[in-house]
């Protein structure tokens, strides 16, 4: 199943956007982590920005960066939002309230708790009536998101904006479900090659089950620590603008195989 990549974005500790993240992704300098960049969230009106949770801001940040990179009207593509646990902070706050004396949780907190909150805020912000999906699949959420986005792109012949995002649980759920840090990435998929296409991506299920560890041990720690960061092997391949195959772990005994073919000299840089 072939799709074309017109844009990519990344967010994580010490990874403030695609351009600035290229040196560590290419292995030109070691990845050392760092602070989480501030969210710009320019798409959200002030009132919504106050209401929205951190996961909404993260998902919208990476989605907006990708849309801007290729200049597509953000209302045009179908949306796939993928995250293992969505807004872990809102979920924790709700469970805490419900264990207390007053169980009446705040209405805003309740509507922010739905997994499709980013999809809702995004569609309102950009005025999109396109289909939007919100999915989850534990530590293999990146593969599931990629598969949903690619099948929708190819079968419906529509551009698809895939946004992957995860934020950590606060204590005490952090002990039961450790998510190491906030991480997000987005890809703009096209069913046919466009002037903005920089890669062809062949997406298939495969019996190969092992994902090769990333060479940079800090990146490998990030990959293993956050479900959304399981996309890092692909992001690294795109940063290097190199032909090759990456494997994302999925449902054993099958994995998702992504064969990358660069279409230009400079890739996304």
């Amino acid at each position, binding site marked *: 199943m072939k799709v074309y990549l017109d844009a990519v974005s990344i967010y994580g500790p010490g990874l403030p956007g695609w351009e600035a993240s290229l040196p560590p992704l290419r292995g030109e300098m070691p990845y050392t982590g760092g602070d989480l960049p501030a969210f710009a969230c320019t798409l959200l009106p002030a009132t919504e920005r106050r209401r929205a949770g951190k996961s909404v801001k993260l998902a919208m940040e990476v989605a907006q960066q990708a849309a801007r990179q290729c200049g597509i009207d953000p209302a045009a593509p179908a949306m796939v939002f993928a995250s293992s646990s969505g807004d872990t902070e809102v979920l924790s706050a709700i469970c*805490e309230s419900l264990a207390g004396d007053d169980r009446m949780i705040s209405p805003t907190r*309740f509507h922010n708790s739905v997994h499709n909150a980013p999809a809702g805020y995004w569609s309102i912000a950009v005025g999109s009536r396109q289909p*939007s999906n919100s999915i*989850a699949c534990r530590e293999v959420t990146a593969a599931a998101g990629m598969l949903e986005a690619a*099948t929708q792109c190819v079968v419906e012949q529509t551009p698809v904006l895939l946004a992957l995002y995860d934020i950590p649980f606060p204590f005490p759920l952090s002990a*039961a479900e450790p998510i190491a840090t906030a991480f997000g990435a987005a890809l703009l998929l096209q069913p046919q090659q466009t002037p903005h296409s920089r890669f062809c991506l062949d997406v298939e299920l495969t019996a190969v089950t092992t994902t090769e560890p990333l060479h940079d041990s800090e990146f490998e720690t990030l990959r293993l620590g956050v479900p959304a960061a399981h996309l890092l092997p692909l992001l690294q391949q795109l940063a290097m603008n190199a032909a090759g195959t990456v494997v994302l772990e999925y449902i054993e005994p099958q994995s998702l195989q992504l064969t990358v073919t660069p279409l230009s000299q400079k890739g996304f840089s």
Partner: protein
Amino acid sequence: MTPLAITSSTLTNSLGRGQYATLNALRDNRSGLRPCDFMDAELATWIGKVDGLDDFAVTGTLAQYDCRNNRLAQLGLQQDRFIDAVENAKARYGSNRIAVIMGTSTSGILLTEQAFRQRDSETGKLPDSFHYTETHELSAVAEFSRRYLGLTGPSMAISTACSSSAKVFASAQRLIAAGLCDAAVVGGVDSLCFTTLYGFASLELVSPRPCRPADANRDGISIGEAAGFALLERVAAAPAGGIALLGYGESTDAHHMSTPHPEGLGARLAMERALQRAGLQTDEIDYINLHGTASKSNDGAEDKAVAGLFGSRTPCSSTKGWTGHTLGAAGITEAIIGSLCIEHGFMPGSLNTETVDPAFSSRILLHSRNQAVRHVVSNSFGFGGNNCSVVLGRIGA
């Protein structure tokens, strides 16, 4: 689109275990709703509760998955010879070639709510026995169902609030059309929990009496729980005349996080896209199963969308007066009710509804009737303005 056969289906909810319990209750005008008696919830509302889940613990190799939501999934999977149908499909396609896509809004959050009540008073820790990934993570019920059925095809959870288990049909169709699998188990499971009971109460969206969809005096929803599953295969694998998914349509409102577009624009777009994929005109639809939550805003907006597209001719009703609003399981519940209507030549009325809102223009059925049904549209709309409609009919009809 190429239709997909629904070769097996099953439904468990407050009306009983197995899809014929639902069919019989629809025919007998028997509601599954009762005054809220869920654990220690103190809410003046009615609920659609599935009895006996305490006796259906998940045990053995899947014991870590034990929670109310997965118990409900397990009880549901055991009805209507659904497992036999999946075994049969496994023998034909192989377990790698059957996908499992499940909708849920809150997964097993009840267990996390309970764990928070049992925090260690000194350290604040949750009990050691608590397993989050297997119970509450949103794909827990997809993973439980996949393992319970012994399937290894593509899998994921869809969580778009109350449209979740309608959208599973769309994603499954795409996976099959793309050749990544030959069949798919789709479904939805949502179970009672304090998050939704108190969350909808805080939004002042729950009714103090059994919900009355489309009624002039409707005053909110009744929350229910349900598990539903369907096995989808290419039509070549199924007998002519069997039930099929003919189309689906997805849209977003781009309006508000918790209230639908007042003119129902997103809802109408979902229905239009579903009809287009099915290659059907509005006059070929015999019955519409409405989302019909009995909230003021949903039913009003949906009426505008339905009347705008279908006029005042097509019979429609919400079945939430029977089952309650089963949230992430509503899509699959009502798709299967739609297929039962086609199979048994039956249209349910709008239970509990006394006087249809005089502002409504669509043709709300107050009383059930026996009548041939060729094609059904089933609507599911969720928070965040997330809409999905499906069209059902017969293979080769």
